[in-house]
């Protein structure tokens, strides 16, 4: 951080007019994009939501279909985020602490949801569990419905948000190394004790950060969920899907009211994320101080 600071100062002092022009253009372009494509649209969500006044805003949110969408979204988040947290920690521990066959392949497969389009992620589940799918008939016989029902939405959301926690933890744990864990084991701690008392506290800020990212994505996931949901109003619509339905019905104030809730959630997660990122960097600096020679 310090080095970057002095670097900037040095640049300011010795800048020629070309440098100044280049940096001027870069700054102007960034500002234009941030304001034109991010700030104004986000502000307009709130503007549109409240355009017809508070009462319309409030009424559109207490509509049964809206309440059902909010509840469903919270339910999906409540299932997907804890599961992905557990999975992410397990995957990070496995990939950074142990040697096993297929380790590299596992490492790249975790990233798969980042690489494929969410629509395809949704389609995978339709192909698997839909009535024409491979496992569809079996699931149907057992009396379950996955596609066009809540289980499908949960599965699709889990699939899309799998990498967030693991991807945050793997580099962190690689950097931290495992000497403290070895020390704990040499002091007689079991693997379980070592995990809870040493590993988990060491990674906690990175873990919270990953969970925040995962939550934000789970709340707002549209593509994959849209494919598996079936859009049954009041039953299988999550908040993003409900926004789309309202919008297609030209119910603009209600659509924006719901969108403004999602935007608030997004902005809140941004703040939390920044805070956690800051904590993580601070911990990393403290850890660095403890290393010899630095």
């Amino acid at each position, binding site marked *: 951080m310090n080095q970057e600071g002095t670097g900037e100062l040095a640049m300011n002092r010795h800048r020629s007019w070309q440098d100044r022009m280049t940096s001027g253009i870069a700054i102007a372009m960034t500002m234009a994009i941030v304001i034109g494509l991010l700030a104004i649209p986000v502000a307009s969500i709130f503007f549109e939501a409240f355009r017809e006044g508070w009462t319309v805003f409030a009424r559109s949110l207490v509509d049964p279909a809206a309440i059902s969408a909010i509840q469903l979204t919270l339910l999906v988040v409540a299932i997907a985020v804890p599961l992905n947290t557990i999975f992410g920690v397990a995957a990070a521990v496995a990939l950074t602490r142990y040697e096993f066959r297929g380790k590299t392949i596992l490492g790249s497969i975790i990233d798969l949801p980042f690489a494929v389009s969410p629509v395809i992620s949704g389609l995978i589940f339709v192909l698997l569990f839909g009535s024409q799918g491979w496992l569809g008939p079996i699931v149907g016989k057992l009396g379950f419905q996955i596609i066009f029902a809540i289980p499908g939405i949960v599965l699709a959301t889990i699939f899309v948000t799998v990498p967030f926690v693991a991807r945050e933890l793997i580099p962190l744990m690689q950097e931290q190394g495992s000497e403290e864990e*070895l020390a704990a*084991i*040499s*002091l*007689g*701690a*079991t693997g379980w004790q070592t995990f809870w008392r040493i590993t988990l506290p060491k990674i906690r800020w990175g873990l919270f950060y990953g969970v925040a990212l995962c939550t934000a994505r789970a709340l707002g996931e549209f593509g994959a969920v849209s494919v598996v949901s079936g859009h049954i109003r009041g039953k299988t619509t999550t908040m993003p899907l409900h926004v789309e339905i309202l919008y297609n019905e030209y119910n603009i104030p209600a659509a924006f009211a719901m969108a403004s809730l999602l935007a608030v959630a997004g902005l809140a997660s941004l703040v939390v994320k920044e805070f956690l990122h800051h904590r993580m960097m601070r911990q990393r600096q*403290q850890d660095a101080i*403890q290393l010899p020679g630095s």
Partner: protein
Amino acid sequence: MTIELRQIHKHYQQFAALDGIDLKIRDGQLTALLGPSGSGKTTLLRVIAGLEFPDSNPGSALLFDGRDVAASESAKRQIGFVFQHYALFKHMTVADNIAFGLRVKPRRERPSEGQIKSRVDELLSLIQLAGFGNRYPSQLSGGQRQRVALARALAVTPRFLLLDEPFGALDAKVRQGLRTWLRQLHEELQMTTILVTHDQEEALEVADTVVIMNRGRIVQEGTPEEVFHRPVNHFVMDFLGRVNVFRGRMDGDQAQLLGNLEAPKPSHEQIPLFVRPHDLEVDRQPGDSGLPATIQRIGQGGNFARIYVELPDGGQATAELPWSRFHELGLQRGERVYLRARAAQVFSPDALPADYQI
């Protein structure tokens, strides 16, 4: 506790990190495993600790007080292990670090919180850090952290202590102080201790027994005096301090220096002579059989003057003179002097690498 290793091998793919180690460590002794990096000393320590497992060979055994522990896991071996980079738990206070080994014991064996607290206080004063219990590791100096790591290892009353380059990351002054302190602590506790180091001074000063390793094998084992004054081969001599190699002859007890080892050697009567810098006498007078040399540079060796000389046939040598002797002679750079060996080591040809064969 006694520790005995028989025919311990450890391979990483083709590479033999440990190549047939036989070693007995007597009860209450402080043993130093000394060697260059890659010599296998740390691997050996980790095998003893149970952090690495040796290859399973017939005839190999790892015995603690006569019982084979080769298959038992680290936690069962009751060892105190101190890591080079301390490996303190950064998110815990010093007191919690020290108490860790006691708190993770199964409920039946776990002391009460009151007992733990008094044990922690006892250890804090043993490491001269009483009153530091509430600090975090990041608030301590390197030397203090290493003492905390030692206290943490001692808290569980281990059967023996393993120290992996414990002072390697500290600066010279702190290291000196900790060395003396460690030796005093050892006198007090009388606990069997194995210390891994690549610092020959540390090993010679602190240990009762020095085990010198190279390429996964034990090269020599003995008291500091034995290994320093009677090295079994050129490697040990070279590793334990600076050494000059000359072409020469032994006339009874008297070593006669004839020149550089690489220069042409007409007579087969000549052998390589290994001479420590402090055994190399420098004089203005040729006397009988002084080897002529020219002073190239005069360096600071701390408590002595270090004289770099060039031999007439192009070889180099280093002599160490007490400052009093140096001033008495009034030596100057570029001067012609004469070298004589007060003592020299001779090794049988099979203890020498090929480039020293004449």
